[in-house]
């Protein structure tokens, strides 16, 4: 068991999510920074589907009642060494502390977090307030069981620094044009790519609001349409909403471009005030970027 001594700002249980249920209004969800989460599981020797803790801005304090191995990845947490296996003896306390740079830290525990699977996943779904064991973020006093989803030995060394993503902005985020390019002037995406967008304080797992200083995009209207993770919606006032893992499954604002899968983790680590540059790429570059990260994780991912 793990006892939650302090919950942290917004700590939830996540795994690889529940893709395929969007037609019921359910976002795929899962770890916002899928890459950091995959690495954390890999370091402790867990199956790729094991659930872990996603901490936001400031992490929890946890007490472990058995010997175990944990790994912290993603945003840098003040409280413990990250990107490496950390052996904890029974009775140990892990105080994650403040997270910076980056916004979200993942804590994988050898064996995985054991909570009931709801609709194919252990992830907490913010829009539906279900899953994640408690149907809410963790709270002080919660007890969490450890599962049996370890299938490899823990790594004996740190995760190589050369196989990590940038940890702080300015963020360069690659996008593919569309699907609603017709709702914009012909050069709109080019103009968006030429400016530095600014992350506002309005960011969560559903989406990130960005300002476009010096640029006022004028979106046309669309009929309500299905939306995907990474879609960059342009609101009538010209601001951007970049849809994230717990995004609305349909929406009425046109999407000028969509962030490629390999760069979605960057959105999970962007902080208010950071700048984001969007760069349009084609499907081939998106595929190369994906293969690069998959290669770092190994063939089993």
């Amino acid at each position: 068991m793990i006892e939650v001594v302090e919950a942290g700002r917004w700590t939830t249980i996540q795994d690889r999510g529940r893709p395929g249920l969007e037609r019921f209004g359910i976002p795929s969800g899962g770890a916002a920074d899928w890459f950091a989460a995959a690495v954390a599981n890999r370091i402790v020797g867990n199956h790729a589907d094991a659930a872990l803790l996603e901490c936001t801005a400031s992490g929890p304090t946890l007490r472990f009642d058995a010997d175990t191995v944990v790994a912290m990845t993603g945003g840098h947490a003040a409280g413990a060494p990250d990107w490496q296996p950390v052996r904890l003896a029974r009775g140990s306390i892990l105080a994650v502390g403040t997270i910076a740079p980056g916004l979200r830290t993942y804590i994988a525990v050898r064996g995985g977090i054991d909570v009931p699977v709801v609709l194919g996943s252990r992830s907490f779904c913010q829009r539906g307030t279900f899953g994640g064991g408690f149907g809410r973020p963790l709270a002080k006093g919660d007890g969490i069981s450890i599962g049996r989803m370890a299938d490899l030995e823990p790594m004996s060394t740190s995760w190589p620094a050369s196989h990590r993503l940038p940890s702080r902005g300015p963020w360069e985020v690659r996008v593919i044009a569309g699907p609603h390019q017709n709702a914009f002037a012909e050069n709109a995406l080019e103009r968006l790519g030429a400016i530095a967008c600014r992350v506002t304080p309005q960011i969560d797992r559903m989406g990130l609001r960005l300002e476009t200083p010096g640029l006022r995009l004028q979106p046309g209207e669309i009929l309500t349409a299905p939306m995907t993770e990474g879609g960059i919606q342009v609101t009538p006032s010209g601001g951007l909403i970049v849809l994230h893992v717990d995004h609305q499954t349909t929406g009425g604002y046109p999407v000028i471009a969509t962030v490629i899968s390999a760069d979605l983790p960057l959105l999970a680590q962007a902080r208010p005030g950071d700048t984001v540059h969007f760069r349009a790429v084609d499907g081939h570059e998106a595929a190369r970027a994906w293969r690069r990260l998959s290669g770092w994780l190994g063939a089993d991912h």
Partner: protein
Amino acid sequence: MWQVAPAGDRAMLVTLGHTIDPQLLGQVLALDQALHDRRPSGLVSTVPAYASLLCHYDPDVTDAGRLEAGIRELEGQLDASVAFGPVVDVPTRYDGPDLADVALRTKLTPAGVVEAHAGQEYLVYCVGFAPGFTYCGALPDQLAVPRLASPRLRVSAGSIGIAGRQTGIYAVESPGGWNLIGRTALRLFDPAADPPARFKPGDRLRFIPTS
């Protein structure tokens, strides 16, 4: 002519039209069914809404060009005479916080709003936005009112709202900008149920006033 556009590197959006129209919805559902039956290589799942269909694919198995070709083969080949579902009754208490305001705006009495809203069948065009949220149309012209100027932060599950030519049912508590005129005790979203959402596009329903 269908528009097929990338929605990132693992999905593409097929847009069949731009209006709220039962026939267009019928075509979307026919395409959805045809893809379900044919299972083109690499297609993972689909999401229908109004006049478009999102197709998620596995880029390790197929690519956008091949999948688009597979979809285009169906253009003009679909039997769009899809039978919509039987009419489901939605017991409704018309006591929403915006009922009086909607009556003022539409120059009807509250009872007149209820009569107009409950007086016809609706087609479900989309389940989306949030888990189980059910978009229905078309609302009678006389009930068309704009969304609230500032959305509510919390709308409770079961709330029934109207906006523009649409009416919708909130299935889970969420923020919301629609004018709330009533609520139902019918449970529209249940993670333990299969399927988890009570309605799907192509279903039909009517609101039955209860006291």
